[in-house]
């Protein structure tokens, strides 16, 4: 990017991303006395994985026994890579914040005893409220303004730069603390609301030397109509499955069933387990977004077969992300915090997926903690970010490096090559050492060309950077996956060669580096002990 940005702002805290995690972070930072700017690639209120659908949440009353049970069950599911203290923290915090959402006007339903049912949030409604709350707290919101790179000096991070794509100008926000809340990476697989999620935050963090954790736990696909984007699949519990000859194939939406069936040929579903008009009416009303594509395609899902596919969800309903090292979701780099799907969710989900209630709850809690931590950090800084000697940290996919015209590589070509290694079930679902090694080799080859993209306008500039971010994310994923030579509980990672869970590998894997990717292990911190006090065992593992 050019040396000085056309739009310059200074704040205490910059929040990058306006999904639930970013919205809560911005609200929390502002409530704790900070001057806050929030930038979103799209629009705070409609953008990201939550907005177009909705999420179930963890809403457990503060009953000790109930909570202990929930924690124990999650620890087991998550291959003992989570931490009970963190799960408890989330259960406490989300309970409080859901009460707040109701105060802010969310119309939670009450049961027959008058108890509010705060375990589900309708995406559009929830995020419209969050936009109002964030603005009311005094946060300056820049929509349609993707961040492209962080600003750094020897003290750490001090803001970011990006583009405002509808005004065709560059912006720079200087702030002594930055929260990355850019969501996960779903590799443009057309899942509902997920094409804005290209791992931009991972790359930005990686460029300033932050590690990522849990990137091997990314074997996550969601059923969706083959023609459409709707990856909300809960209602498929009412489906029976058929092959193209109309023969029933027995299985459910969980586990390997769909992936295995799809390898053999097309799979169709009919929701004929909802066999009374009453049930059907219920389902229709509870999940308008689920029925919308079928209704519009003229398919009566209760009686007619519809074709299914699996869409890759990467780290959205996978688990890996930026490593956080303290209760306030800070990272190892000064002034840098991470929240939501941008951060690793291993601390509460271990090796299991956080989809289904944990992720949405995590977005709320980690946002709240990161915002507060960022405010405290920024307000304790003696120097204004405006006068720091900050330099842009972006190195990849920012254009302008191709040495000759012949070297120019279109982003679209690279995206296709990345998707070819990441989306196929045969590579990423049915993981084998050989398959992943070959894929990683090809991804390295893509990586070597990310700086040969030469974007000509704002749209291409954003695409080129997204391409680099996806390539980096994919390499981190597969490097970590090759280093975990086991199949751990939760279903998010396995290697055919190593079908069992190995006690010796009950640790986390941290990846870092862009030119060369390296991996090391970290012991799961003992519950109740401050995370920073536990030294990471840094037994170096060779990548690949």
């Amino acid at each position, binding site marked *: 990017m050019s040396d000085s940005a056309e739009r310059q702002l200074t704040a205490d805290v910059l929040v990058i991303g306006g999904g639930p995690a970013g919205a809560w972070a911005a609200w929390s930072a502002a409530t704790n006395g900070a001057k806050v700017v929030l930038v979103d690639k799209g629009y705070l209120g409609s953008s990201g994985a939550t907005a177009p659908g909705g999420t179930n949440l963890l809403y457990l009353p503060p009953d000790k026994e109930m909570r202990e049970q929930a924690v124990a069950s999650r620890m087991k599911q998550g291959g003992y890579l989570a931490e009970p203290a963190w799960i408890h923290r989330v259960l406490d915090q989300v309970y409080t914040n859901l009460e707040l959402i109701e105060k802010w006007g969310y119309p939670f339903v009450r049961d027959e005893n008058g108890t509010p049912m705060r375990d589900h949030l*309708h995406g559009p409604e929830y995020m419209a409220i969050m936009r109002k709350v964030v603005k009311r707290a005094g946060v300056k919101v820049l929509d*349609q303004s993707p961040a492209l790179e962080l600003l750094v000096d020897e003290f750490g991070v001090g803001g970011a730069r990006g583009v405002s794509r509808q005004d065709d100008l560059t912006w720079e926000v200087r702030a002594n603390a930055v929260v990355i809340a850019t969501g996960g990476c779903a590799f443009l697989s057309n899942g509902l*609301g997920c094409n*804005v999620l290209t791992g931009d935050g991972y790359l930005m963090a990686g460029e300033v030397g932050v590690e990522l954790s849990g990137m091997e736990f990314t074997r996550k696909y969601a059923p969706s109509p083959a023609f459409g984007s709707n990856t909300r699949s809960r209602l498929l519990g009412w489906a029976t499955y058929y092959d193209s000859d109309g023969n029933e194939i027995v299985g459910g939406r969980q586990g390997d069933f769909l992936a295995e069936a799809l390898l053999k040929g097309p799979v169709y579903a009919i929701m004929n387990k909802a066999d009374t008009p009453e049930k059907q009416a219920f389902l229709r009303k509870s999940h308008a977004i689920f029925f919308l594509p079928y209704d519009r395609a003229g398919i009566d899902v209760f009686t007619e077969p519809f074709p299914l596919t699996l869409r890759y969800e990467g780290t959205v309903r996978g688990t890996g992300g930026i490593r956080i090292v303290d209760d306030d979701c800070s990272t190892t780099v000064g002034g840098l915090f991470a929240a939501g799907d941008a951060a690793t969710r291993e601390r509460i989900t271990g090796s299991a997926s956080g989809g289904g209630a944990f992720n949405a709850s995590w977005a709320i809690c980690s946002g709240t903690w990161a915002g507060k931590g960022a405010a405290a950090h920024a307000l304790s800084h003696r120097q204004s970010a405006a006068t720091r000697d900050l330099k842009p940290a972006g190195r990849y996919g920012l254009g302008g490096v191709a040495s000759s015209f012949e070297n120019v590589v279109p982003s679209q070509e690279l995206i296709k090559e990345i998707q070819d290694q990441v989306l196929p079930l045969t590579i990423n679902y049915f993981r084998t050492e050989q398959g992943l090694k070959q894929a990683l080799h090809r991804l390295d080859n893509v990586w070597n060309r990310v700086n040969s993209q030469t974007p000509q306008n704002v749209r291409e500039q954003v695409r080129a950077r997204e391409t680099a971010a996806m390539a980096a994310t994919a390499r981190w994923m597969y490097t970590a996956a090759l280093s975990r030579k086991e199949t751990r509980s939760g279903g998010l990672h396995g290697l055919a060669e190593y079908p069992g869970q190995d006690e010796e590998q009950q640790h986390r894997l941290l990846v870092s580096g862009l030119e060369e990717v390296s991996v090391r292990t970290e012991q799961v911190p003992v519950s109740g002990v401050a995370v920073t006090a536990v030294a990471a065992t840094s037994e170096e593992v060779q990548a690949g």
Partner: protein
Amino acid sequence: MIEVVSESRCVSCNQCVSVCPTNVFDRGEDGIPVIARQDDCQTCFMCELYCPVDALYVAPDSEQVIGISEQEAEQQGLLGGYREKVGWGKGRKPVASHDYMYRLSLFARF
């Protein structure tokens, strides 16, 4: 993908331009937004929800353009259908305040 911007219904509020997460629309010189980057559409239906006058139609197909016209969408009663279902718009009750989800969870055994 986004297929239709109804010129007869559009009131040029540019809400769709603002809210589209993938920046598919451009402001039109005559005030009617233009579908400028249809390829970038992620079929999330958000523009439809935010359009105050039901002037947009997003086809369910996320993989290809189907090429439905405004007249066809109008005739088939497709404009505004989603807003009605989620209870967005004047005088409607948002779906969030219904007890369907709660009753569903009593119903569901998974």
